[in-house]
C-alpha cells in the first residue's frame, strides 16, 4: 500500500464504492471491498496530510546545464 500513489489509491477507492453499489455479491466479497475501500481512504488521507510542498530553484550550472536546487 505504501508505494501506491494518491491518484492510484483514489481511483481504486472509487472502484470499490462502485462495485459495492452494483450489489448482488456474496457477503464475503462485499466485506472485502468494504475493508479494502476503507484502507484506501485511510491511505489517501495520510498522503494528503503528510504531503509537503517541495520548492526548487532553477539555474544554469557552471557547465551550462539546467539544475534545480532546494529553495529556502
Amino acid at each position, binding site marked *: 500500500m505504501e508505494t501506491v500513489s494518491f*491518484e492510484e489509491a483514489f481511483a481504486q477507492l472509487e472502484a470499490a*464504492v462502485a462495485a459495492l453499489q452494483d450489489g448482488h455479491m456474496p457477503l464475503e466479497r462485499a466485506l472485502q471491498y468494504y475493508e479494502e475501500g476503507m484502507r484506501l481512504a485511510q491511505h489517501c488521507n495520510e498522503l494528503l496530510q503528510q504531503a509537503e*510542498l517541495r*520548492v526548487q530553484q532553477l539555474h544554469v550550472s557552471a557547465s551550462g546545464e539546467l539544475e534545480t536546487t532546494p529553495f529556502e
Partner: protein
Amino acid sequence: MLFLDARSIVSVTQVSRYMKEVLETDELLRDIWVRGEVSGCKTYPSGHCYFTLKDDEAQLPCVFFKHARQRSSAPALRDGMAIAANGRISLYERDGKLQLYVECVESLGDGALFLRFEQLKNRLEAEGLFDRERKRSLPSQPSVIGIVTSPQAAALRDMLRVLRTRYPLARVILSPALVQGAEAPLAIANALDLLNEHGEAEVIIVGRGGGSIEELWAFNEEVVARAIARSRIPVISGVGHETDFTIADFVADYRASTPTAAATAAVPDIADWQAEIHAYQIDLSSLIEGYFSEKREELALVARDLQRLNPQFQLDRLRQRLDDTTALMQTYMEHILTLRGERLRGAAMQLHALSPLLTVARGYAVVRRDADQHIITSVQQVQPGDDLTIQVTDGHIHAKVQ
C-alpha cells in the same frame, strides 16, 4: 432628474443643483480616467490636494481628498507631471466650480509611456497574440509548477503559502528574475525560456506584487509578451492588483488579478478531495450495512422455514391433531350411543310387547307335553293319557288328557 420649467426664472441655487445632477448622473462622468499635465498643485494642512490638469487646449480643476489619497497608492504630485487621474466630475455649488474629484492617480511618466502601451497593445493584438483560440487550457492537476518572479518578493511567499495549503502534493520550480527596472524585461523573458527548456513544469505563473505603472512596466514590454507567446507551457499571469492590466495579461493563457489569485487558479484544492474521500467512507459504511440487513432478512426467512420443518414442531402439531380428533370421536361416540340407546329401548319395548309372557298374563297358557316338552298348539297332537304341563303366569299345572 429635476424637472426645469423653461419659462420659469430659476435661482442660482436651483440651476447649480440642476447642473450638479446632470454631471453626477452622466455615465461617463461618474467614473472617468483623464490624462494631462499637473499644474498649480497645492496641498493644504488638511491633507487635501488641489491642482489643475491641463493639456494644450483645456484645463480641468481637480481635488484629491486626504482619504482618497491615503487609499490609493498614488505617487506624490508635482507640477509638470504627466498623470492619468481617475474619479468623478461634479460641481461644487458653493464655489460654482466644476472639478474632478480624484480617487486615484497613475503616473504616466513623460506621457510617452502610455502611448507606447497603446501602440504595442494594438500591434500585438493585430498579430493575433491575444486571440482566445491561442489560449491553452490549464492542466487540472499539475505535479510541477513553474514560477517566474523575484525570489525576495512578498508575492512569492504569498504564492507558496497558497500552494502549500491548497496543493502540497506539487513541486514548485522557481525561475528567478528581476521584476522591475531596466534589466527586468529581458530577465523575465529568459526565466520563461529556461523553464521551457528544463521542461518539467506543467504550468508557469509569471507575476509580481502591486506597484506603480513604472514598477509594473516590465510586463508591458514586447520582449516579455513574446516570451509568453512562445512558451510551450501554459502561462498564468498574476501582476499587481485587480485593476492592473498589463500586456503580459493579454498574452497569457489565463489572467489572474493578483499573484495569489494566480496560484489559486493553477491548482485544485485538496480540501475538495478530502471531502470526497470522507463521502466515500460514508458510502462504504452505509453500503455494507445494506448488505448486512439484506442477509439478516434472508436469514429470518430461512429460520422460519426451518422452524416449520422441525420434528418437534411436527410432533406437537400431530399431537394437537390427535387431541382434536379424539375429542371429536368422543362427541361422535356419545351421539351414537345415545342414538343406539334410544333404538334399543324402542326395540326392547317392541320385544316386550311381543313377549309370550304378556300373552300368558292375559290368560293364555303355554301347554307342553311332558314326554318331549313339545309345545302343543293343536288337539291332534295329543292322545288320552298323555301327561301335560300347563304354564300359567304364576306357575305350572300338571294335567292328564282324558
